[in-house]
């Protein structure tokens, strides 16, 4: 372990004290922040030369960001347990036999969730709830089933205090799926995030319309292009955290992101960007990720000791890593300016084509880089369009068009998305607030989803422009909770603070309403 300066220790001590005294953090949020502070004092990774100059920078110049993963990763960032196996076999470590009825099933799941670590210290994936619960619902009537599901989902919302937590539904319609959608419509909660895996050939219109109706009430589920994900990751993919496509029984070791706009700022011109700056940053970020993965696999002991791995709920060789990027819009606009051209990202063919060219270059780099512990994805990382963090200023999520600059016509907006979604098997997505007084027609939304998926869009989210639960970037927050926090009151879920930051810095409440 490498030594660090006393100054850093002192600074950290001050941050620890500030955390302890914070008026707005809950107890759990404090404990979690304190753990992060402790970890930040360690230096155990074999870091690539030049990293610090790209990483330890303010948001105006930072080129690589590791999204608070800490200095000594003690577990993978995203963990996707095989809940089906747990339901079939129970768990020795948790001293639970396989559940026999719906009461036991729900109880077992709620217990399991409390033992699934991830970057957030809460499970980022809570299972394909319809498939997990449907078999147990056959012995209860709709009314009882709804009551039980309601209690279950309220429990999840009030104990998984972070909306980077994702449940999956579909693609097959089920009774459990329908009831969950109905219940979520009534509850209007932020947690869990939900995705409907949607394939018009498998998911019938009735079920999909129920999903649209629920999304216009509680901002979820989102729609994932099932055909596209299956073709890349296989049938056993899941959607976790924001919108991340990952393998069941595996997950992602790490997610780092390049802030493309800041890389463009370093470049003299387009040529310098493509030939020098971008390749330089990609190389350092890939090697930084390699170092993190190496520590997790070879030194942390997680895969040898955690019960999830020991009992086969996860497998080391089903993990991969996510090579992320944000700020394509800013990057393209800066480079266009440096080339003396006027076109802007999202509004100009040449600017958009430049975006695609940059994506091709990132893809080619990733296709050439290998990591010995990413066997499940052919030895490569998966590209990821990161959704941004609360402190991002003038950094647009992934490849999104900046808020306030969205094309006037929804069709043009969707066409732009279709240029980029295909590059990101581990997740990307676009969000559309809908004026539900103008569009009292859920089939309208479903037709748009159907069309979009034919045009290679991967992932779409909708919410009613006047609903309380809104989608911030990838996660959900209640507007009413943001207002509470703004007025200085503590709130239950830590993502509310992120939502507040994103509302102020990222203008999410000013998205163009469709």
């Amino acid at each position, binding site marked *: 372990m490498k030594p660090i300066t006393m100054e850093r220790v002192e600074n950290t001590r001050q941050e620890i004290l500030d955390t302890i005294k914070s008026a707005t953090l809950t107890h759990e949020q404090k404990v979690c922040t304190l753990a992060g502070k402790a970890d930040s004092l360690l230096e155990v990774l074999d870091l690539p030369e030049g990293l610090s100059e790209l990483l330890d920078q303010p948001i105006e110049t930072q080129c690589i960001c590791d999204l608070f993963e800490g200095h000594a990763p003690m577990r993978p960032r995203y963990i996707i347990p095989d809940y089906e196996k747990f339901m079939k076999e129970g768990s020795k470590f948790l001293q639970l036999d396989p559940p026999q009825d719906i009461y036991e099933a729900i109880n077992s799941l709620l217990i399991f969730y409390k033992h699934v670590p991830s970057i957030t210290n809460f499970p980022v994936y809570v299972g394909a709830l319809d498939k997990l619960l449907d078999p147990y619902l056959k012995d209860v009537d709709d009314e009882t089933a709804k009551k039980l599901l309601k209690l279950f989902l309220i429990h999840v919302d009030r104990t998984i205090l972070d909306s980077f937590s994702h449940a999956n539904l579909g693609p097959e319609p089920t009774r459990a799926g329908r009831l969950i959608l109905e219940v979520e419509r009534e509850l209007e909660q932020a947690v869990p995030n939900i995705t409907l895996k949607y394939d018009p050939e498998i998911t019938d219109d009735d079920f999909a319309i129920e999903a649209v109706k629920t999304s216009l009430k509680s901002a979820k589920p989102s729609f994932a292009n099932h055909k596209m994900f299956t073709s890349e990751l296989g049938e056993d993919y899941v959607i976790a955290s924001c919108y991340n496509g990952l393998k069941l029984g595996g997950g992602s070791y790490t997610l780092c992101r390049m802030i493309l706009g800041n890389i463009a700022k370093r470049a003299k011109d387009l040529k310098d960007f493509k030939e020098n700056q971008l390749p330089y940053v990609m190389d350092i970020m890939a090697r930084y990720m390699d170092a993190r993965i190496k520590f997790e696999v070879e030194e942390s002991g997680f895969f040898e000791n955690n019960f999830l791995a020991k009992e086969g709920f996860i497998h080391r060789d089903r993990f991969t890593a996510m090579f992320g990027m944000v700020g394509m819009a800013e990057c393209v606009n800066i480079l266009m300016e440096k080339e003396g051209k006027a076109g802007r990202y999202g509004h100009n063919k040449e600017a958009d084509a430049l975006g695609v060219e940059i994506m091709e270059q990132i893809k080619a780099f990733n296709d050439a880089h290998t990591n010995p512990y990413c066997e499940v994805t052919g030895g490569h990382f998966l590209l990821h369009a990161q959704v941004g963090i609360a402190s991002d200023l003038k950094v647009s999520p992934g490849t999104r068009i900046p808020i306030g600059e969205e094309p006037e016509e929804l069709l043009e907006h*969707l066409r732009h998305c279709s240029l980029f979604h295909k590059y990101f098997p581990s997740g990307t997505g676009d969000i559309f607030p809908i004026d539900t007084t103008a569009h009292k*027609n859920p089939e309208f939304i479903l037709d748009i989803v159907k*069309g979009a998926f034919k045009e290679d869009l991967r992932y779409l989210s909708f919410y009613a422009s006047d609903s309380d639960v809104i989608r911030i970037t990838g996660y959900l927050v209640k507007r009413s909770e943001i207002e509470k926090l703004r007025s200085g009151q503590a709130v239950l879920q830590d993502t509310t603070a992120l939502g507040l930051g994103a509302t102020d810095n990222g203008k999410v409440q000013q998205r163009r309403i469709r």
Partner: protein
Amino acid sequence: MNNRLDAVTAPVNKIIRFSSVDGPGNRTAIFLQGCNFDCRYCHNPETRRFCIGCGKCVKTCPAGALSQTPEGQVRFDPAKCVSCDTCIKVCEHDASPRICEMTAEDVMKEVRWQQPYIRGITVSGGECSLHPRFLKELFEIAQKEALTCFLDSNGSYDFSKDPELMAVTDSVMLDIKAFSPEDHLNTTGAGNKTVLANAKYLAEIGKLFEIRTVVAPDLFDVTETVRCAGEMLLPYLQKGAKIRYKLITYRPMGVREKYRNMRIPTEEEMMGLKMLLTDMGWDDVVIT
């Protein structure tokens, strides 16, 4: 636009690529110019008649999108238009200078642009049924391309006499503006014998998607209209036809000056009309 001599054209006022209010799902709505009714509450009167070349709008267009030929014909340049609607506001002849004569194929080119996002097209107006040959040509192509074809009509055209058009029409959204002939005359300046016959005919052949009534209590007996129209179509509902009744609240937006002061029905009145229909056995009643 491409005006081939042999192909029928229709005057197109506007094309909305994505519409959620012109029939089921997402549709492209095509608005044709010209109407044979004179509804007092018409909220886009600029679609009613044709330009007489008075030149008033040409002078007021802020974007230079309008010009006039020496013969007085108004020319419109869509590339320059900023959609400010000044022209239709200043026009005193219930017309618009932004009309394009288009063939069915011209329109289909515009429609194909938003494939695969739409499930069909709806032709509205003005009054679309003033252009039956154009409709037939358009729908024939659209149906071949797996798009459903809807008409939005005031019901003045006897659909039962045009089996060729009905063969390519998937469904119709029909206005019943008032039930008694006097009320209808007072509201629209025209009679409604054909309208009511159309409603029954379309219900009978399963091509009546929706009935609409704009509820303007100053103009006609709204309760009688809704009740009688509801009762007239009830037998078809009982035989399994799926028909929606849309009750549209009269609002003064866009209405011509002299008719702008009519009373807006209250929410309770609208709910009362809805109840009237649901009590009768209508299960799909929508208020807008």
